[in-house]
């Protein structure tokens, strides 16, 4: 049975919709800059901010709900609406939504958080529980898309949205759903800025994935959503088939709570399993959108995994985090969309700012825009807890 991608929506530091993102990718226009409009930053961080304000988003959608959605939910709604388009409920077409966010589950801004942590311990826990609603975004977006049942919220840190896509596909394949809206969203907050800074993983320069002198990641914000459908739903809804999702896999590195194993065991396994599922040999892959955060650990571990699967001749690979920053829970879906765009336009986007090949590597990532036929591609996403997900797309 084929799983078709029939809708895409994205918002990031390099554009507010698919077309704008594509234009930036083709023109090497990155979005990593000094962060503005985040109050009480402990340091002058740089990152990939979405250019639209919360007020703008609230007004655009004429949102007047009792509870004001968190920025991550607003970004999610923007991308979801672009992907979902004018679709409506359809008799006989079982529809669902799978969505995830990391920070968006702490549905509160820093000022309120400050009040919370200064109250009594008991009050803290109560207040926190009231605002900690990972499902809020899911239900909010579902309501706007007219999706009544089959609502799922997933949380696996940086591989979240990739897992949304994967589990959506599995539900269609198992015959539980015909059509599913899948994705993730994230916004930049002091919580995550300080968290990655505490891990000494945050670079104060634009990230340089797979560069020998890489100093760490920059955070980004945004959202990506896809619509996945089976043949029955495509016919009934008259959808346009954009791409096929033919392989997927999720594994656990089981090495350390945050760091990846030096040999990238979990990543290697995820890549292999996803190729196996698609019945594709490694040499058939034309392009890889790597997780490529720009941290010393991820990039060498990921390279080792790719080398173990593909040998000395790794297909053209890049990291689009050099454009957007690391969008955490949204990364998997934003980058799946970039992978599809690369395939549609037969273009491997560059890895910005990277210059020096890693000592242990036999090749660099693609550094300049490269035109070539891309029929089959792989997208990697790895998260805390050793979570590794690989997705395979085909024309």
């Amino acid at each position, binding site marked *: 049975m084929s799983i078709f991608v029939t809708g895409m929506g994205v918002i990031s530091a390099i554009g507010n919709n698919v077309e704008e993102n594509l234009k930036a990718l083709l023109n090497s226009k990155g979005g990593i800059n000094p962060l503005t409009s985040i109050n009480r930053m*402990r340091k002058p961080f740089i990152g990939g901010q979405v250019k639209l304000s919360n007020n703008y988003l609230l007004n655009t959608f004429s949102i007047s709900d009792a509870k004001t959605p968190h920025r991550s939910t607003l970004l999610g709604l923007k991308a979801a609406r672009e992907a979902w388009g004018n679709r409506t409920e359809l008799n006989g077409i079982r529809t669902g939504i799978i969505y*995830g966010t*990391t920070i968006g*589950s*702490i549905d509160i801004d820093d000022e309120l*958080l*400050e009040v*919370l*942590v*200064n109250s009594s311990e*008991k009050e*803290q*826990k*109560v207040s*926190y*529980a*009231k605002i*900690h*609603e*990972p*499902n809020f975004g*899911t239900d909010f977006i579902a309501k706007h898309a007219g999706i*009544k*049942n*089959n*609502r*799922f*919220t*997933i*949380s*696996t*840190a940086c591989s979240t949205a990739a*897992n949304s896509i994967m*589990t959506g596909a*599995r*539900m269609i394949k*198992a015959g*539980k759903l015909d059509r599913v809206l899948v994705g993730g969203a994230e916004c930049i907050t*002091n*919580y995550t800025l*300080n*968290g990655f*800074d*505490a*891990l000494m993983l945050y670079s104060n320069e634009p990230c340089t994935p797979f560069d020998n002198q890489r100093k760490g990641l920059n955070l980004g914000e945004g959202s990506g959503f896809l619509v996945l459908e089976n043949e029955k739903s495509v016919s009934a809804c008259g959808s346009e088939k954009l791409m096929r999702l033919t392989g997927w896999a*999720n*594994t*656990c*590195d*089981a*090495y350390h*709570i*945050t760091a990846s194993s030096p040999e990238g065991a*979990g990543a290697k*396994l995820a890549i292999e399993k996803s190729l196996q599922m698609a019945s594709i040999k490694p040499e058939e892959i034309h392009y890889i959108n790597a997780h490529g955060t720009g941290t010393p650990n991820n990039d060498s571990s990921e390279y080792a995994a790719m080398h173990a699967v593909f040998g000395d001749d790794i297909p053209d690979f890049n990291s689009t985090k050099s454009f957007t920053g690391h969008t955490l829970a949204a990364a998997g879906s934003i980058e799946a969309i970039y992978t599809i765009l690369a395939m549609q336009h037969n273009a491997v986007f560059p890895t910005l700012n990277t210059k020096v090949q890693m000592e242990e590597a036999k090749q660099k990532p693609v550094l300049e825009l490269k035109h070539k036929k891309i029929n089959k591609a792989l997208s990697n996403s790895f*998260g*805390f*807890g*050793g*979570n590794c997900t690989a997705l395979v797309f085909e024309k």
Partner: protein
Amino acid sequence: MSVYIHNCSTISVLDSFEQGILNALDSNSRKLIEPEYRQFIPPALLRRMSKVIRLGVTPGLKMPESNHVKGIIVGTGVGCFDNSIQFSKKYIHGQEGLLSPTDFIQSTDNTIAGQLGLILKNNGYNITWTHKGIAFENALIDAMLLCNEENCTVLVGGVDEHISLFELEHSTHDKWTGEGSSFFILGTQRTNARAKIEACETLAIDNNIENTVNLFLESNKLNKPEIILYGNSFLSATEIPVSVMGINVFNYSAVCGLYLTNPAFAVHLATDIISNQQEAAKHNFTANSILVVNNFNDTDCGFIYLSKP
């Protein structure tokens, strides 16, 4: 798409970790009875674990079958929020200089599943579901899918710790805040199974609960169950009924307390009832088919239908 339950383990306000739920049912305790975590969790990892993480990993570690599963799936409603609060305090209280990272890394909701993978050295599927009061149902649906896809065994569970939410808002004899962790070994093989899960689904409440129960039974082609284990995983304005569609109801959340993944507790209780008919009879439960109904927030309903294997 059914699965079999091969083993269960629960930490709760009952002495369930040692005795199972049915055997410990008569206790009136409302305080969590915790095991000696040191016996299960390596010290190097235990020292970093907040309460919810210890609570989450231990039932899985108790069951020897966990060593052979192909997937680890966790449902949690509130996740590792204590770590989030602790990390937030550090930077909000205006500390200069470096911040300690441990609370940050332990605060992602998938830490529980990740730690299980690490301790069990399991490279398989590893996912966490967080849809508040139906997070466990989300996880169970995923686990049932995985078992059937790969013809394998899976470790799945639900865990949440105590939050004083209900005490401050709405507390009655039957509705009080609980906490707990229930984990299961699921598989496709009937041999040595304790119970069978016929179906698991969540539905937006359509008019009323009875109507929604009917919708669930019809769409899954199931007969009326012999008993219903009914509870709330969160605040609900409606009282728990004495019967639904003429079927007797047992209020499970009155026993384990309200917490977002308490349907997992009910599934363990249902498994005990089905697999230990003698003990079940002492409590006037005799049933070969049980429906777990979770009224979450008067908006959504989780349904889990169990039967004799």
